[in-house]
Structure formats: structure tokens, C-alpha cells
């Protein structure tokens, strides 16, 4: 047993750290740190900086334009990104669709879309969920009917993250309603500028706009946009989901949040003492710290397995559950550390002259509420438990 990273890995960490210190735009990092939402331009500006170093498509092999990193290197990179308050890479194009096209796409699709993903010419979003099809994705109803060399799509997608910025959407559609649900689904690429598509914003609990509804009315899409075979989309969808779940433990984010919380608890005063000196608070913080330490090692054990065996196993579901629970607990304690000062609605008015709390904490409550999503999306924690029940426990 040896829990230390190799000298090469340590050197790599230093390299990433130096790069981030030099290249991450300060204004963007500040927004991430204070929990403010990023503009489309913020994302693209940062992703261009990464791509200059070929560190954008981190999940891609070298020959496709990625850095060809091992899972451990990717993990180190993610950790450092979070600690430096770098924006999370918008994963729909680069981490989800990219690998799918490499595996299932035809030559025309690969040569057309992959370079455009790398150069950020296209902004992709994910059209899986529907109002009636959440956890039970296979019950989706959006219809695609073949008409000569086009598909005509009718239906509705929902929860489309950052769809307001997207010019392309990859969708699961029903191409055969007569067979078992999983067997009549296809995976198709749609240009959002096609007539008949309407995007409507959904406002979330804390007031932000990050998700949308997308309506399709007689949307005509070239048949060549089908990825893989007609009615075999479920295989494609599942392959994409395994990519959606990598790095889902969010170890880096939790590290950063714990660090920040410790600082906050040293600043905040209660009853003439620092909050961190309050035994109840210190106990809560310490328990989370213990959980996080253990999770980091669990995560490394899984990375090690993945490095040895190639693909991550169903254990990623374990990391999804534990990782989201820990992050939510950290959000919860950060909000509580501020006491009543966490309660004001973060708004422009508050940021001016007499801000209640240090501006970098103003969004603590909003972040807590927004991050309730962590245990719901990407396959809810209940669904992850169902997966583990079957695959790991064999029940």
C-alpha cells in the first residue's frame, strides 16, 4: 500500500497549479468563488485558454486532440481546477457527445463535429429528460418519424441545462413506439436553429436561470444526423451516461468548500468567540472533514481500479451518492455559519454600499438551495442505490 502520488504525478500537479495561477482570468475566478452565474462568454473565454494548452478535452485520447491523461491525472487536474475557482468545463459537447461520436459516430460525423467541439464552434446541450420521463428515461415520448431523408420531430424536452446558450442539442427520440421502450429509441443531433424549436427558460428555486424547456413542432432534421443505428439509441445513451458520471464525486469542489468553511468559521464571531471555537460547530465541521478524507481515498481506490481495468465500474454510483451528500453537507454548514446574515436574497442592491456579509459569502444560501440538484440530476441518488443494489450487492 502506498497512498502517495508518484513523483511524476506530483510534478504534474505543480504544472497544473502554475498554469492556473498564470492563466485563469481573475474576474472569472472571482465570479466562481462568490457563486455568481457565468456568462456564455466567461465559459468560452476560459475554455479557449485551456484549449491553447490542449487541456480542454481532458477525456479525449491524444490522437483526437486530448491530452491523453490517465484517470489519476484527470483527477489531479479536476482537484486543482476547483481549488483555483476555475469554472467547471461545460461538459455536454466535450465530455459527453465527444466520446459518443468517437465510439458510435460515422466518419462524416466525426470529421464534422469533433473539431467544432474542440474549437468551441458549437455549444451542445443534452435533450434526454422529458416532463414524463425523468428517472425512467426509457419512457420518453418525443417522436421522430422518418420522411425520406429527414426525421420529423415532435415533442418536448425539459431540464435542458444552459440550453439558452446552445446552438445544438443531442436528443433521445422515439423512432418505434411498437416495441419494448428501450428498443425503439434513437440518438440524434439537432441544430437548434431549425424551424419549429422553441426554448423557454425555467427559473430555479434560488432565482437563477440555468435550465430550460425545449419544444419541438414538426422539426425537420436530416437523417444523416442519426448517431449509430436507428432504434439502437439506448446503447448510445447508456454509454454517454457512464461519462456523465465520471468525476461526479466532486472531490475538488468539496476540498475547496471545506477550506473556505474553515476560513469562514475563523472569521465569524458568536458570543465573543470565533465560531470555530464553538464545540458543536467544530464537531459538525470535523465530521464532514472525516467523511471527506475517507471519500478521497475511496475515490483514489476506484481511480486505481479504473486505471488498471480501463473503464470505471458501477462503483461510480457510490461516489455519486457520497460525493453529493458531502458537498450538500458543506453547503449546509457554510450557510449556517453565517447565521441570519445568510438569509438576504443576494441581489445587486445588496452588493453596493452596505453589504451585509463579506461579498464572497453572499451566495451561501443560494448555493445551498441550488445544490439540492446534485442528488437529483445525473440519475438521482435513489436510482444510484437501485443500481448498486443490483450490480454490487447482487440483490
Amino acid at each position, binding site marked *: 500500500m502506498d497512498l502517495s502520488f508518484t513523483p511524476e504525478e506530483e510534478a504534474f500537479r505543480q504544472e497544473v497549479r502554475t498554469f492556473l495561477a498564470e492563466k485563469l482570468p481573475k474576474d472569472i475566478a472571482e465570479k466562481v468563488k462568490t457563486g455568481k452565474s457565468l456568462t456564455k462568454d466567461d465559459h468560452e473565454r476560459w475554455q479557449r485558454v485551456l484549449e491553447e494548452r490542449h487541456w480542454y478535452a481532458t477525456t479525449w485520447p491524444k490522437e483526437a486532440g486530448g491530452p491523453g491523461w490517465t484517470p489519476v491525472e484527470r483527477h489531479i487536474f479536476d482537484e486543482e481546477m476547483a481549488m483555483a475557482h476555475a469554472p467547471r468545463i461545460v461538459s455536454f459537447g466535450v465530455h459527453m457527445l465527444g466520446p459518443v461520436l468517437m465510439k458510435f459516430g460515422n466518419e462524416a460525423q466525426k470529421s464534422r463535429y469533433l473539431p467544432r467541439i474542440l474549437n468551441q464552434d458549437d455549444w451542445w446541450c443534452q435533450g434526454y*429528460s422529458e416532463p*414524463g420521463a*425523468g*428517472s*425512467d428515461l426509457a*419512457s420518453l415520448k418525443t417522436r421522430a418519424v422518418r420522411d425520406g431523408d429527414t426525421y420529423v420531430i415532435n415533442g418536448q424536452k*425539459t*431540464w435542458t441545462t444552459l440550453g439558452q446558450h446552445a446552438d445544438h442539442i443531442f436528443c433521445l427520440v422515439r423512432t418505434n413506439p411498437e416495441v419494448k421502450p428501450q428498443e425503439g429509441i434513437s440518438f440524434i443531433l439537432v441544430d437548434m436553429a431549425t424551424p419549429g424549436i422553441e426554448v423557454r427558460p*425555467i*427559473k*430555479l*428555486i*434560488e*432565482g437563477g436561470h440555468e435550465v430550460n424547456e425545449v419544444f419541438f413542432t414538426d422539426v425537420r432534421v436530416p437523417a444523416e444526423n442519426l448517431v449509430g443505428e436507428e432504434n439502437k439509441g439506448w446503447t448510445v445513451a447508456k454509454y454517454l451516461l457512464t461519462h456523465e458520471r465520471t468525476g461526479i464525486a466532486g472531490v475538488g469542489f468539496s476540498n475547496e468548500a471545506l477550506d473556505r468553511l474553515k476560513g469562514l468559521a475563523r472569521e465569524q*464571531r*458568536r*458570543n*465573543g468567540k470565533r465560531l470555530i471555537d*464553538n464545540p*458543536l*460547530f467544530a464537531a*459538525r465541521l470535523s465530521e464532514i472533514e472525516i467523511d471527506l478524507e475517507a471519500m478521497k481515498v475511496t475515490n483514489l481506490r476506484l481511480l486505481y481500479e479504473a486505471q488498471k481495468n480501463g473503464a470505471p465500474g458501477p462503483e461510480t454510483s457510490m461516489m455519486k451518492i457520497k460525493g453529493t451528500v458531502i458537498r450538500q453537507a458543506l453547503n*449546509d454548514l457554510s450557510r*449556517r455559519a*453565517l*447565521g*441570519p*446574515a*445568510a*438569509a*438576504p*436574497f*443576494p*441581489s445587486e*442592491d*445588496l452588493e453596493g*454600499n*452596505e453589504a*451585509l456579509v463579506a461579498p464572497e459569502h453572499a451566495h451561501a*444560501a*443560494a448555493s*445551498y*438551495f441550488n445544490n*439540492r*440538484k446534485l*442528488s*437529483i*440530476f445525473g440519475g*438521482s*441518488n*435513489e436510482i444510484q*442505490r*437501485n443500481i448498486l443494489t443490483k450490480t454490487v450487492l447482487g440483490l
Partner: protein
Amino acid sequence: MDFEVSDDRRMLADTLSRFLSSDYDIAARNKVAYAAPYHSPEKWAALCELGTLMALAPEENGGFGGTGFDVTTVFQELGRALCPEPVLAQLMAIRLLMAAGEDLEGPLSGTTRYAVAIGELSAPYTLDLIETEASGGTLTGRKSVVYGAPGADRILVAAMAGGTLGVYEVDGSDARVTAYGMIDGGPAGEVFLDATQARTVLADGAAALQDALDWGTLALCAEAVGAMDWSFATLLDYLRTRKQFGKRIGDFQALQHRAVDVSIEIEQARSITILAASRMGTPEQSRTCSMAKNLIGRAAKLTAEETIQMHGGIAMTWEYPLSHYAKRLTMLDAQLGDTDFHLERVMAAHMAA
């Protein structure tokens, strides 16, 4: 033993509930709760017209209630409807003015609206470390996150004069108040006092302030019970109707057992609130209020988090009323002492013994 609700209180609850559900439904609520002035002066007037505030004081002070159960009756309905009106501040003001033997006409009719400013940035919950100073008929200091402060006609302020904690009254227009809305709706503000003209209400006011805090705490507990009842009923409806995998999601045992656990905690919350209400005015008042607030903090958070989780994405949206209940249930922990603060108070008795 008798756990029946008296006819008078049932009538009060019905009246309030009818008004709130018809005239102040969630759509109307959300419209006012998140935009300045973060409540509705017209609805405030209508609520007062119904006699809501009268229930907060006993007959000898001009009201028609004033017991713990009267207060919980009112606040449960306010919680069930997620009402953003600053009734809590008014209740606490009424208790302080009663202690000072002052005329309650204005506060009980609601024609004079009060805010109560106790907490400060580094002492959000305690009376021990208040730094605002009273001297020569003026106040100087800063009060933080004062619920109901914007637009209040008068502000009752806890301040120190020569080592004694007192209660002083400032005219709303004399104090500098920066207003903001809360993440869970409703108005609050920072109150800046800079040699601001003040009237002494209680020169020695520590006991009265603690009493006002206890009553406020009881009210918050009752508000939470009302909001939890609403949230749980909504969850049950959803578990019965939402279908995934060809079944109602309520058919999955993984959700059934958790829903049962939430319902048990809500009953516990109701019980401790009843206990606290029954002990108002007894030597056990403060301690029981602390017990109640601690348990409420835990139960309300569980209810908020679990009702969101078991709904899935829909409960994450602004459009779906539950999200606003969840925010209120979470944030009321930060008012008048959170779970840890009250746990420490309960612990203190054991540790001193």
C-alpha cells in the same frame, strides 16, 4: 388531558385560513414577497382587520387571547400559507410593550407597525454581547438582519446603558434602514443608529427581551409546523400521482419509508410546540422554547430536503410552490437562534447541574 382545539381558536384558524387561501394564495404571495417592499401593506391591513393581532394579547391588555395556544394557532396558519407579513415582529413588540405596561391600541390594531431590533453582526442570537449604546436619549450602533424593519413605524431596540440592557423606541423615520428581501421572502434590513433620538421603554429590559425572544421562538415553531404540514400533504399527493417505471413513485419502498420518517418527525415537532405553548408563563418557558426550536430546526430541515428530493427536479423550480416552503423551512432556523444555539442552552442546564 385534552388535546382538543377550543372552538374559539378553531374559528380563528378557519377565518385566517380562509382569508389567506383566497386573498393571499401562493401566486399573490410570491408576487409581493420577493419585490420591495417584500410584503403587502394592503394585505397587512386586511390581516389586522380580521383580528389576527388581537389574538396575541390577553383581554386585560385589550386583546382576546395571549396564551401560547393562541399564538401557535395564528402562526400555524401563517406558516401553512407561507405568509410574508411581519407578524412575528409585531408579536415580539406587543410582549415588550406589555412588559412596560404601555397602551397596546396601536400595536394590536396594526395601525402602528413595529420592528424589534436585537441581533447584531457578531452577536446574532444572544442578549449578552449587545454593543449598541444608549445615552442622553439617543442610540448609537448597528442592528443586523432586522425582520420587518423596512417601513416599520417604530423600532424597539435592545441597547446598553451603563452596563444595563434596556429597550428603547426609535421612530422608523429617524433610523437609517437599508432594506432587502430575504431568500425565503419577506422584508428585513440593517438598522443604523447614529446618535438617533430614542425613548426609553424599559430601562432594565433583559427579562422582557428574553420573554419576547421566547414568544417569538414559539411563533416560529408554530409557523414551521404549519409549513411542514403543507409540504408533507403536497409530497403525499405527489407520491400518489407521479408515475415512473409504470408505477406511482409512492409504490417504491425506498420512498415510502422515508416519507413515513418525515411524518414521524413532523408529529414530534407538533408535540414539542404544544409542550412549549403549554409552558409559556411558567418557569420552564425559556428552556422549553429552546428545546422546541432545536427540534423544529432539525425536523424542518429534514422536511425541506426530503420533500425536494422525493419530488425530483420539479421541486427545484421557482414555479412549484413547494420550493418556497422549503426555503422558508430552512431559513427559519437562522431566526432567533439556530439548532446549535438552542441545543447549547438545553445542554447548559445539564452541564451546570
